[in-house]
């Protein structure tokens, strides 16, 4: 768990490094949003399940608890985006 915490910390540091070196945190922000956005759009559902339901979709509720965050190697995207926005502000270019 400690290693995972370290991994999450390093991920923030890497984001920070990338933002400072390129001088454009908004580029990384938009890339992050694009990748997670695309992945989130790919469904988990099965074609047959959807066909049997006759397009009667039930949206899965995705509950992300703080506890599960402790087990992740990457911080949640929202937090990375928030951290990047903070860096952007200190660089004098609010997003």
């Amino acid at each position, binding site marked *: 768990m400690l290693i995972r915490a370290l991994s999450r910390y390093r991920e923030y540091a890497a984001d920070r490094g990338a933002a400072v070196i390129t001088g454009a945190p908004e580029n990384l922000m938009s890339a992050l949003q694009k990748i997670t956005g*695309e*992945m989130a*759009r*790919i*469904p*988990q*559902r*099965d*074609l*047959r*399940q*959807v*066909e*049997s339901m006759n397009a009667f979709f039930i949206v899965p509720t995705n509950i992300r608890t703080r506890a599960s965050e402790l087990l992740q190697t990457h911080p949640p995207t929202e937090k990375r985006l928030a951290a990047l926005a903070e860096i952007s502000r200190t660089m004098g270019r609010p997003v």
Partner: protein
Amino acid sequence: MGLRDLLFGRSKLKDASPEQLFALSTARVTLEVELGLRAAGRAGICFKPLSAGEFARARTELTELLTVAARDSGSQVSQSTDEHGFEWIVIEDPELEDLVTTVHLVGSELVAQGFGAQLLAAVFRFDGAERPVFWIYGYKRAAFWPFVPTGKGQGRDNAEELKLKAELENELPIEQDLTRWLALFGAPV
């Protein structure tokens, strides 16, 4: 679409179209040379369960159709029902080109016999990467999408799927609406 349909929010059901299937034969070189993916020699056609009445008629016609398809193409053709109650026609042929041709033939025959609305998807399996890769062809959308199950429950490798999309975008008609990339877990191919 007429004004009445517009007013009542009705849209015409799109006919199943097997025509874009052949693009997969063309994409074979890229799949093999650049991605190391080889056709596993198996493909499946998935269609919705039929009502009891249709079923009796379909049985005889399907059996006839499969015999003809197998004879004309030289591919192995068999039929099965999966745990969801959906019907599968499984085609085996070592050459991807022949596989695609037989899948196209069976699909067109099903449409000609009036089962077009039942026709859902064709699935082609490719081996050679870390995990088996499936290319799913949706008949209603006439487009392909990649499906890489992780093998653990209902997990799929989205990163790999997006990579495949990027690599083959110029050769395959790929479904652009990612929310329609529905899974087919445990397909018999």
